[in-house]
């Protein structure tokens, strides 16, 4: 799937129509910017995420934007621009960890459950349904309490958010993969493998798995935004990551609440925009990829009459 998408992408960008093309392009640009910022964070940021002073002494609290601090400083005296840039790293980290924790078990369980069926399948489907009933944020708060007693380090905060996201996503991957596996299981090529005498494990891994995971890239671009929102939500509620362990947008927003009423705009807007743009970017990218993968959603209008070889498809 990823391959097909990669092959279609350039063509799509050139020939796609109006709104869909704009969506996909915006998504690509925003996500690209986000990933670049995260990777190049240490080079881009003028200061460290927990830096309070430089050669000229303390930065000072709630400083207006100026040459030394393009976006000013927070109430705690951190440089806002640096915090925001470093925050992208944390956000990327949560996406990677949460996806790894949910994609792998979700896919394996879905594969086994869908292919083998029977009692195991019923049990797993029941469990997945039960997991849906938990509100993810509540779960995340619980996790963070369990992992690090509330106020947490980078590992604790990330772990809590990642686990809670994983718990709510595993059922999604599980269901999608299971449904696909059940469809693929009925295809003649699986029968062909069974007739040969292929064992169930080999059929699952060689014939079924790769034919069943084609929609996953689309789900995880959409889920990535959920992961960021959960971490930000935790931070905003005060269960996130301590400011001296990592920069985290949700925490910064929480600290900026009081500033807003005092007319200090520069502490709230940058981390807020970080969250909004990242979530928007991944969501748009996900939607764009969905359109790309589904030929029914691709609209084509009248073609230039270029004779090429190959026959039309009738019957």
């Amino acid at each position, binding site marked *: 799937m990823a391959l097909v998408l990669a092959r*279609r992408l350039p*063509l799509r960008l050139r020939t796609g129509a109006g709104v869909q093309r704009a969506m996909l392009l915006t998504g690509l640009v925003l996500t690209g910017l986000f990933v670049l910022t995260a990777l190049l964070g240490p080079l881009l940021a003028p200061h460290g995420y927990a830096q309070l002073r430089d050669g000229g002494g303390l930065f000072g609290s709630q400083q207006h934007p100026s040459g030394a601090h393009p976006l000013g400083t927070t109430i705690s005296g951190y440089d806002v621009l640096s915090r925001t840039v470093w925050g992208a790293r944390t956000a990327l980290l949560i996406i990677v960890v949460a996806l790894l924790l949910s994609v792998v078990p979700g896919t394996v369980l879905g594969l086994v459950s869908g292919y083998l069926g029977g009692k195991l399948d019923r049990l797993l489907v029941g469990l997945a349904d039960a997991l849906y009933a938990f509100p993810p944020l509540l779960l995340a708060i619980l996790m963070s309490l369990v992992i690090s007693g509330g106020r947490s380090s980078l590992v604790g905060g990330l772990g809590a958010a990642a686990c809670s996201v994983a718990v709510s996503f595993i059922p999604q991957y599980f269901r999608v993969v299971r449904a696909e596996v059940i469809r693929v299981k009925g*295809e*003649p*090529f699986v*029968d*062909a*493998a*069974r*007739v*040969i*005498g*292929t*064992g169930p494990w*080999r059929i699952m891994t*060689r*014939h079924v798995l*790769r*034919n069943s995971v084609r929609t996953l890239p689309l789900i995880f671009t959409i889920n990535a935004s959920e992961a960021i929102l959960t971490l930000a939500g935790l931070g905003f509620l005060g269960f996130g990551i301590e400011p001296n362990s990592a920069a985290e947008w949700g925490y910064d927003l929480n600290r900026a609440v009081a500033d807003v009423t005092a007319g200090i705009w520069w502490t709230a807007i940058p981390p807020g925009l970080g969250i909004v743009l990242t979530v928007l970017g991944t969501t748009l990218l996900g939607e764009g990829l969905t359109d790309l993968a589904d030929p029914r959603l691709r*609209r*084509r*209008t*009248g*073609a*230039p*009459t*270029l*004779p*090429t070889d*190959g*026959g*039309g*498809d*009738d*019957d």
Partner: protein
Amino acid sequence: MTDLLRIEELHVDFATDTGAVPAVRGVNLSVAPGEVLALVGESGSGKTVTARSVLGLLPDTATVRGRVLLGAGTSEPGEDVLTAPAARLRALRGTHAAMVFQEPSTALNPVFTIGWQLTEGLRAHGRGGSKAERRALAVDWLDKVGIPDPATRVDHYPHQLSGGQKQRAVIAMALALDTRLIVADEPTTALDVTVQAEILELLHRCRTDFGTAVLLITHNMGVVADLADRVAVMRAGQVVEQAPVRDLFAAPAHPYTRKLLAAVPHFGTGGRAGPQTADVQAQHVVRASGLVVDYPGRLGRKGFRAVDGVSFEIRPGEVLGLVGESGSGKTTIGRAIAGLTAVTGGQLELFGEPLTRNSRKPRTAGRIGYVFQDPATSFNPLLTIAESIAEPLVVHRRELGAQEIRAQAESLLEAVRLPRAYADRYPHELSGGQRQRAGLARALALRPRLLIADEPTSALDVSVQAKVLDLFGELQRELGFAALFVSHDLAVVEQVADRVVVLHRGRIAEEGPTSQVLGSPQDDYTRRLVAALPVPDPVRQARRQQHPVEEGVAGS
């Protein structure tokens, strides 16, 4: 007489990701009132696209040039469907030309009654007067197309009708608006052969009783011979030959037409030269006695008995043909032997050993080869052809090593006359016939003693079918495997099988040597089956219609 339909220089291109693909390239056709014009050709020849353009049913991705003129038959056809405004096009549809689709179960909306759908067209064109009058008209039309008990049937839903009755209802819908022209796109392809005969008879009546012209799209030469007045042969978007039906069959002018006609298996012209030298004393490859297969029903419902007490045997080196209509249980028997479907009762012996029930990995695996109906879906789309063919070797004979397995896969490709270069292609890069050859290669990879072929040629075009059947016959003689050949096509079975078993609703209707069963059938059902098969020869087919009983017996 003036024409009902005239197509002039029709060009249709489809936009795809890789640029425009031409489907129809300069077609000229005309249909006179009361005439049946058959448009024949293989898949991809553009016949369906041509037919759909008559009703303006092409998708948005199509670019059309040329003219498609429709008329009422009283004056020169003057209205161009391609340039007609949407409202006028709606008015033309149904009254000037109507469509009968291939699959009647999808052409009818499952949530409305037959009568409602029949009167839908009348309502759309503002005809038929009051509701009661329209209903009476619907009953009348259902009666005219031969649906029994039309007054009750009019309130039935599509799923309560059989496939043939549904197709009759679709034809009634077309006729109810007094259409002058019916465009029938493969109207009998999805139907069983006995039902096909009934629908063909009805289409005959459309012309004689109602004077309707028919534009018939089909790939089946038997249907053409049965129904058509004139034939247009299409190939790669162009009409290569147009002639009256008898002339075309008697003296085809274009080389492609000759090739097409030569490839059609002629039923009743004798098949294999007598039974193979089967050793009667030798152990049976398959012996079934009282075989029963049930499909479990839903909770609290009774299951469905697909195979009901069937006994037969296959000797080494023998090809057994298993024929029957859909639902007769022929595929289920093949699947049961291969271990894909569980046996409910009776005895099934393979290679002298009873097939144990619920064995997770049957010991027979590797000794049976299986060729599937649809070559497009029986290959894992993500593996290359060589990898797919090598799968049986990798599973059962891993000790050979990767190089030896690859070498064997390539020699298998050669055995089925596929170039070695195809080894690294993916299934979608091969044509249907090539894929089915690869399927044969995979089935033969382990040199099985038994090959099960489940409708191996029914998804293929007729010229490709002939080549695949020839290959099958050659390999069978060469390698001497026994085979169970499942098919609904009597002409194909006659060509390949030594003995035939005729199945009817899960039971054996008749069994015996091919020439005997198909040549002089004793059983009532077999007789009907043979009689219903349209022969690809308009002269003989016309004679068969007049004297169905005598001519129904093949080979006379």
